[in-house]
């Protein structure tokens, strides 16, 4: 096996240097670009077998499609965030290895055999579940987006980061499999005064958040799988909370405890952080819902049009924490006029939705924007609208209409307008 592979590599190297001669084709010299029509290594020699890669990995040619972080954002990469490379993604599902990560105490490595979920407080019968216990319960699989409340937070004062990975990449969308929290609540028997649930993680941050019982009973889940396989450690293996449509911080990872109470806890992550400071010094709290938002992922700074005049698909993603995306409009003139885009479907509530618009580009300068609206009638606002209510210090929940500047050479820049 090894010798066969070595031989293949040796032959390939020889073939590459003598390529033009061996295949007897066209242009010679350094200027010659590789032609898809020449004989290739993979046309002739055997590839690897089925035993070299027990868990598959992407092609080496896709090595640029990775999560990235912004080192200057935080003091330490252990309590920090990385961003999903939205421009390179298709459809609406985020592959598990590209799902953004935000940890407050690093990526915990949890042994499922040593992990339990405890439910106690204002209940008739407190219960403890192992992962195996949970997997015996009736489960559901649902598609939901998760978005960090700080997505777009660096853009409040003006255009700052040049790439949709950085302006919007704190969002991902997966199919989650797990048990509905309502099932678990019925099993423990919530007392009538049990109105709030505190979720707590088993990691070093011990992340804790208060969630109203109404939401818990509506559509929350304890998930153990994401996109058909066990959660990745960075997403809370062996189990995490799923709080559809609500800010990602509430989706407690490595979850180990649910306490039922009559009042909220006002934990650090719902007071010091994840509250929205307004210009007048007051602050909103319990701003859970991720409002309707959208971004054009192609073209984008990562996917410029670079002198390629002619036909293009404008494509992007829209979502709403309140329900389903009803439609997306596209402006080419900085918001003066709008064209309805096509929704690709499936369109599901609290889920990323892809939109497209075919476009014939003549090389003109453009200011392109997307504006989503959802089935509650809410329309994504402009920066001016958001700033007029909030000022620029609220950090969280920036869902303002975003602008890409398409330059005559096809380069794309993140800009803001008046």
């Amino acid at each position, binding site marked *: 096996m090894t010798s066969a592979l070595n031989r293949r590599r040796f032959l390939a190297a020889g073939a590459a240097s003598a390529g033009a001669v061996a295949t007897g084709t066209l242009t010679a010299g350094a200027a010659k670009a590789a032609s898809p029509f020449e004989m290739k290594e993979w046309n002739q020699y055997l590839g690897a077998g089925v035993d070299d890669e027990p868990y598959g990995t992407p092609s080496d040619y896709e090595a640029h499609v990775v999560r990235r972080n912004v080192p200057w954002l935080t003091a330490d990469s252990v309590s920090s965030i990385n961003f999903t490379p939205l421009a390179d993604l298709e459809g609406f599902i985020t592959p598990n290895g590209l799902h953004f990560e935000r940890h407050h105490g690093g990526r915990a490595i949890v042994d499922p055999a040593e992990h339990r979920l*405890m439910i106690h407080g204002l209940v008739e019968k407190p219960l403890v579940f192992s992962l195996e216990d949970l997997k015996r319960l009736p489960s559901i699989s649902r598609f939901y987006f998760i978005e960090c409340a700080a997505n777009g937070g660096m853009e409040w004062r003006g255009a700052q980061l040049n790439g949709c990975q950085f302006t919007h990449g704190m969002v991902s969308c997966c199919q989650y499999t797990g048990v509905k929290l309502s099932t678990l609540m019925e099993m423990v028997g919530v007392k009538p005064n049990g109105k709030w649930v505190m979720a707590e993680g088993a990691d070093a941050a011990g992340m804790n958040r208060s969630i109203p019982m109404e939401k818990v009973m509506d559509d929350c889940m304890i998930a153990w799988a994401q996109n058909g396989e066990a959660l990745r450690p960075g997403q809370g293996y062996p189990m995490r909370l799923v709080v559809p449509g609500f800010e990602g911080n509430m989706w407690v990872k490595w979850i180990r405890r649910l306490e039922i109470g009559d009042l909220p806890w006002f934990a650090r992550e719902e007071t010091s952080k994840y509250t929205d400071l307004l210009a007048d010094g007051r602050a909103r709290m319990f701003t859970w819902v991720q409002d309707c938002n959208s971004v054009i992922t192609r073209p984008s700074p990562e996917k410029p049009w670079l002198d390629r005049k002619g036909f293009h698909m404008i494509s992007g993603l829209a979502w709403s924490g309140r329900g389903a995306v009803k439609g997306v409009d596209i402006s080419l003139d900085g918001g003066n006029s709008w064209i309805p885009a096509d929704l690709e479907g499936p369109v599901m509530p609290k889920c990323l939705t892809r939109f497209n618009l075919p476009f014939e580009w003549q090389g003109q300068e453009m200011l392109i924007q997307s504006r989503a609206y959802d089935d509650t009638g809410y329309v994504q606002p402009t920066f001016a609208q958001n700033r007029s209510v909030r000022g620029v210090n609220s950090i969280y929940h920036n869902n303002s209409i975003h602008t890409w500047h398409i330059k005559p050479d096809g380069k794309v820049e993140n800009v803001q307008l008046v």
Partner: protein
Amino acid sequence: MFSWCKMMKSQTIFAVAALVGLGFVGTALAQDYQRPSVSGIGSVPSEAQIAAWDIDVRPDGLGLPIGSGTAELGEEIFADRCAQCHGDFGEGVDRWPVLTGGQGSLTEHRPEKTIGSYWPYSSTLFDYIYRAMPYGEAKSLTPDEVYAISAYLLAENEIVERDQVLNQDNFAQIKMPNQANFFADDRSKSEAYTERCMTNCKTEPVTIVSAAPELDVTPEDE
């Protein structure tokens, strides 16, 4: 079924009989089937197991463990366990979080949100330090140490006196100066945007006021 099985003489006969047998029993099962409700999964935790994990503290004081401390004591522990990141007085080293000061800055261009200037409840301080700090060695402080450190941080923020003894009975009563400035999410009223303009939406010409490349702070691949 079982009496059938006992009579089996060879593997072949067994397999055939099992199929026949299963077919028969399966029919009976389908007729008798009743969808069960979930039960018997999970175990009841002991009081001690609950107590070991039940560390959360609420603004009404629920969950505060028995213990006490003063700022004077807390200063020493803070210097030892916290100051390398947060600074001797909570002023923050390099880019680590600032824990003190910032009073009156919330309406400024660069607000400084700290325990003193921003946090609405003292209970959050206990709850958070006990579960998450010191960063890198969480859950290693005793309740007495957390009372003392909290007292120190509250004193540095001029919320309690340096010699005040804080304990399970008075900790939650501490009034935080910024509490009244918090209010529940009102976006569904204050930000109920529903207008979907399609043409002539701008009254003035559109101009670019900021462009990300000018700042040049976007990370680049090596």
